[in-house]
């Protein structure tokens, strides 16, 4: 990414941007004055691109504590007549939903765009959610870009729409837009006016009487969607075979039609305004169609909406066959509404519609791919990075629970440490839900003693998660005297989403210093006994966890060690195996370092039949030095 490309004021120039940068640029061209986000893949780079430009660009950008606060801050800007944007991943929208549904009733003033990046296939998510359902539930208009270029244009347009109808407007992106790159024709930058002001004649009140007003505003949005530049049709007007596609699926559809040579008989309707549907446009396109195929991600949203429209107008439209997820013609990883829609799936589906077939790849190539996949690539589990302090933390928590012997239950949360549910975290986590849920669950388990529950309960959370959604759950545990142990894996950053700062880091999104809010100060303020321990000191950590498991009431243990990928963490030394002390299989340890602890930097040297430390991967955390039963691993200072 080039900040220069993003911030250059050269209308007409063509630059290469990622989808997230294009959305940011769309905001800059729309006069964006306020941007607030909580990081979450694939959305993180929108604010990540805006924040460094904010000071010079005369606008405000922040990493918010959570998505709910982010939308509230953006709404404030909107109420003051400022154009505002908030950015989140699909899961974040759930957090922001309460104020968003209220904002739909109260209405907004300055353009307010809610960018939500869905993650079809859940490449970097725990769930696969389709935001379009929630836009519908909020009664808020939603736009879906099909290309990187369109993501920029649509963002700009969304601000105008928001101001025209007085509602927040959703821009729904997906991973293949957010993280794809494409050429973008730059428009003129528009610095935000310095006229922020709350007009005391304005009232933004959430009240049920505004439900009716909301419906009227949605009708206005629908009317504007009829003329929106993001809906268009390609192919012969009289074709009876119609593809309706949205998002990147549109480009797959177009490609499939071309590969199949079906351009003369298949029409493709690209919808960029997917809720509310532009019904007049849709009705016109459906007329004459006999077979309709839907290509969209993730759920059959358009499919259902269009069928509903058809049912209402069946007499005029006549019989129609629908091909899509319901009919089984379009399926992701097995089931309708699961996984990404790939070009292969689109090709098969359009082939079925056109009654043609074409192989995307030659059979020989497909065979070769399978061969490589099955035979030549070593299967690799998701794993913590070499030297990741989380590995040490889970090792210690697991050991303490085994030593405690009361079948303690460890509840997980959302962050890098979610991997604690997998082999790399020794399958320690038994539950994973939403941000903060681990502590809420722990609080509940802790009160089951009345019902015969005797197991100790540990909630594992991250530092950013602590601020995001844990505090209310902690208050609950403290208030209701639930005997939980909350372990904060504090690596001094929001690591999983790309090292964004958070309230504990002492830095703002715009780079300046911020008052740090130490986790221990907050926890102690709640009256929780709180300890801080370095997880790389394994024995001490085991003892801390063990001891705290056996104390009454709610308490907090901070396992503090910075993420080894932080630029500020310098590698000064590394671990090295003394091959005269390591005796390989003769030790009887069963390759404890690389098999049991299993840091990726600990490898087995087949030639020497000894353990070896990969000198490139080793971060020098030193945990393996403490774990080796023969004291065969030692630090080596790096020059």
């Amino acid at each position, binding site marked *: 990414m080039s900040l220069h490309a993003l911030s250059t004021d050269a209308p007409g120039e063509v630059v290469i941007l990622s989808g997230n940068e294009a959305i940011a640029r769309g905001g800059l061209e729309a006069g964006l004055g306020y941007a607030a986000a909580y990081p979450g893949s694939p959305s993180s780079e929108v604010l990540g691109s805006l924040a460094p430009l904010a000071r010079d660009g005369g606008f405000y950008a922040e990493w918010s504590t959570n998505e709910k606060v982010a939308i509230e801050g953006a709404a404030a800007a909107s109420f003051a007549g400022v154009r505002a944007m908030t950015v989140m991943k699909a899961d974040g929208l759930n957090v922001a939903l309460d104020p968003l549904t209220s904002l739909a009733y109260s209405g907004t003033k300055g353009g307010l765009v809610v960018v939500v990046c869905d993650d079809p296939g859940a490449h970097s998510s725990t769930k696969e959610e389709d935001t379009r359902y929630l836009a519908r539930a909020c009664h808020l208009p939603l736009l879906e870009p099909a290309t990187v270029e369109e993501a920029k244009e649509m963002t700009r347009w969304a601000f105008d729409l928001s101001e025209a109808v007085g509602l927040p407007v959703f821009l729904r992106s997906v991973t293949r837009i957010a993280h794809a790159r494409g050429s973008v024709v730059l428009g003129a930058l528009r610095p935000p006016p310095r006229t922020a002001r709350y007009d005391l004649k304005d009232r933004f009140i959430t009240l049920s009487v505004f439900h009716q007003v909301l419906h009227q505003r949605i009708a206005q949005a629908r009317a504007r969607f009829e003329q929106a530049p993001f809906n268009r049709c390609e192919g012969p007007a009289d074709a009876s075979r119609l593809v309706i596609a949205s998002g990147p699926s549109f480009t797959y559809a177009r490609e499939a039609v071309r590969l199949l040579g079906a351009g003369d008989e298949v029409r493709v309707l690209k919808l960029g305004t997917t809720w509310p549907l532009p019904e007049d446009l849709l009705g016109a396109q459906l007329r004459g169609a006999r077979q309709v195929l839907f290509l969209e991600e993730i759920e059959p949203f358009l499919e259902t909406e269009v069928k509903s429209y058809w049912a209402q107008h069946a007499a005029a439209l006549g019989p129609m066959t629908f091909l899509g997820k319901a009919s089984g013609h379009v399926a992701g990883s097995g089931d309708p509404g699961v996984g990404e829609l790939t070009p292969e799936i689109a090709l098969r589906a359009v082939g079925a519609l056109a009654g043609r077939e074409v192989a995307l790849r030659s059979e020989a190539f497909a065979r070769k791919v399978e061969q490589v996949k099955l035979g030549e690539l070593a299967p690799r589990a998701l794993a913590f990075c070499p030297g990741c302090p989380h590995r040490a933390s889970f090792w210690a928590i697991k050991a303490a629970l085994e030593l*405690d012997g009361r079948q303690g239950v460890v509840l997980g949360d959302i962050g890098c440490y979610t991997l604690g549910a997998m082999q790399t975290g020794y399958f320690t986590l038994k539950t994973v839900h939403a941000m903060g849920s681990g502590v809420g669950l722990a609080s509940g388990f802790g009160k089951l003693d009345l019902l015969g529950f005797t197991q100790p309960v540990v909630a594992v959370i991250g530092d950013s998660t602590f601020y995001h959604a844990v505090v209310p759950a902690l208050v609950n545990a403290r208030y209701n005297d639930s005997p939980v142990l909350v372990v904060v894996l504090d690596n001094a950053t929001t690591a999983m989403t790309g090292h964004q700062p958070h309230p504990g880091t002492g830095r703002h999104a715009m780079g300046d210093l911020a008052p740090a809010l130490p986790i221990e100060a907050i926890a102690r303020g709640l009256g929780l006994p709180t300890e801080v321990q370095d997880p790389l000191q394994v024995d001490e950590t085991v003892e801390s966890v*063990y001891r705290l498991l056996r104390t009454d009431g709610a308490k907090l243990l901070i396992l503090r060690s910075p993420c080894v990928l932080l630029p500020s963490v310098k590698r000064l030394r590394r671990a090295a195996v003394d091959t005269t002390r390591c005796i390989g299989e003769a030790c*009887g340890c069963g390759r404890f370092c690389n098999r049991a602890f299993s840091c990726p930097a600990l490898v087995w040297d087949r030639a020497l039949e000894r353990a070896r430390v990969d000198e490139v991967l080793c971060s020098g955390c030193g945990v393996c030095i403490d774990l080796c039963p023969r004291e065969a691993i030692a630090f080596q200072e790096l020059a």
Partner: protein
Amino acid sequence: MGRGPSELQAQVLAADLCTACGACLGHCPYLKTLGERVAFIHPCPRDEGRCFEVCPRASLDPESLDRQVLGAPRRHPVLGGHDGLYFARALDADVRARGQYGGVATALTLFALESGLAGAALVTGGTPTRQPHAVVARDRDAVLAAAGTKYSACPTLEPLAGLLREGGEALAVVGRPCQVAAARKVEAHEKNGRLAALIGIFCFWALAPAFYRFLAGRPDLQRAIKMDLPKDGDMAFVVNGRAASVPLDEIRPLIRAACQTCFDPTAEWADVSVGSTEYDPAWNTLVVRTARGRDLVERAGAAGALEVRPYPPERIPILEEAVQRKKLRVLDALESGRPEAAYLRIPAAQRDAVRAHGRA
């Protein structure tokens, strides 16, 4: 049947039969202990292991231990092999003050170190009201600091494997009967003669760690410097020079489960065993069992560390009866097929002898 970690886990640890002797520890990185509980912190991939072999609860074969230690079948069905039964006490006033009763275990340990018989002694450190810990004592101060009986199951043998692996000095071990049996199983494998003196402590049961939580609720007892369990009496404490007590009925539920099926309250395979006289708190019962034990006691006596007098003949049946009662209870458990006693490999003749003892 395998003889390794899986069996140790299934038959001993998961079955709550572990006595926390500590002998299985220190061989590998998988077995660890905290709070007098031993556990695998990660599944061990081995089929066989020293952990199982040295565990006194994986299996205990009195006959083979008798052969190993005495070179002969036992001559006493209840007290185990011995060739001397005494009242004894330390002559050093400090030792008597710090040690339990007559301070004999402390005196013998000190003598073993100071005479050069052993370079280090494995003893159990701490105060009676806090969870004790294993101590590798190499001087008088360390031994004195660890003097006095602790009433829970400290894994005192935890450092043993490491000390033996490192080589060098001869070792003395002061331990509960289960620890003495375990040390003999270790000795059978090591065969290097470095276990120079095994000083066994009479133990009719140890308390579970829950005892310390119980004490935490009794601030009046938390600063006790000495504890005792007089015969048929309540648990006695000495706090700031004053006596206090807790009814035995409050203590009994805190007894470690594994101790209910212990067949060896007097450390029958020690070189010498030391216990209460249940009669005169200034003296200890001292059982001399092996030639090595005899030598230790005689040299300590000659050096003026120890004073020994004959066991009052009228007290012998009382001691025997207490031990026999415990053994009979365990035999009943064994013979009624209770799995927690299944570790015992006691031949029929020996069972009969225990039953017949004193009935003539």
